[in-house]
């Protein structure tokens, strides 16, 4: 009765590998996605309500969260008399 097992993210084999000692796990080189090459992550911890409000605002205006944040950071730079950087 495993009609949809092929759709799972984690297979039983993955689970076994995940619980294996770290020293036995091969080092996997994950290539950097092209959209992140030459870029730097900025993060912070905020109220879940703020996170939801940003997601819904982005969606309402047909933007990605990244686009919305870039716009917000430029706005705050202008507010403090700095030059906006754009994307």
């Amino acid at each position, binding site marked *: 009765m495993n009609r949809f097992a092929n759709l*799972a993210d984690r297979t039983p084999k993955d689970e076994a590998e995940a619980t294996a000692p770290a020293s036995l796990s091969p080092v996997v080189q994950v290539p950097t996605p092209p959209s992140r090459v030459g870029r730097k992550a900025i993060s912070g911890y905020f109220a879940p309500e703020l996170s939801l409000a940003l997601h819904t605002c982005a*969606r309402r205006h047909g933007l990605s969260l990244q686009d919305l944040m870039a716009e917000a950071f430029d706005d705050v730079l202008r507010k403090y008399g700095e030059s906006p950087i754009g994307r």
Partner: protein
Amino acid sequence: MTTPSHPHTHTSARTVAIISQKGGAGKTTLAIHLAAAATRAGRISLLIDTDPQASASQWAEWRQGAPPEVIDSAPPRIPAKIAAAAQQGAELIVIDTPPHADLAASKAADCADLVLIPCRPSAFDLAAMRTTIRLVELLARPAFVVFTAGPPQAPHIYADARELVAGFGGQTCPIILPDRAAYRHAVAAGQTVFELDPGGKAANEIEQLHMWACEQLHMSTFAHERKSA
């Protein structure tokens, strides 16, 4: 302004998203039992577990492969998994989401034909549920608050809670799932209330909720009607 996508409109599969920003509202219990009720009615159902805590997946492991089937999914892959599951014969797909998960809740609601928002009938839970209602309003999906885990005999509490939800612009499901020990005992044993106590109140309430959900999804509630259709 982007138009919400309907990745599975070409199939007969229906998708129900269970979302709530607040934890402890019984999302996983509701998801498990809705999928189980569909299985019991002869449908091929699938539960997609997007919660990193993987409670539904753990429950499925305890069941050792007994239906309903549970698969995990990272939120961005939900639409593709729904489309693939529909191609593979799924008739009812239930998506369980973690609390405080904007991306998972948004992706799940975006793919859903029906959104259920389980909520305890308490002031704190109702206030938190307001943000969930805003999310589904934005995505323009049919959504209903389902009162869960409250006292079984308290009509005034539920009447007040319904009024509050209406004040937020939300709709409420007419079926209430009060707190019943059968849920805790069943889930802890890798079972459903149908298996633990088939004639009990919890099983009866879940069955009513399933039939109500089928009506919302324009699905037949009887196996013989489907076969002759």
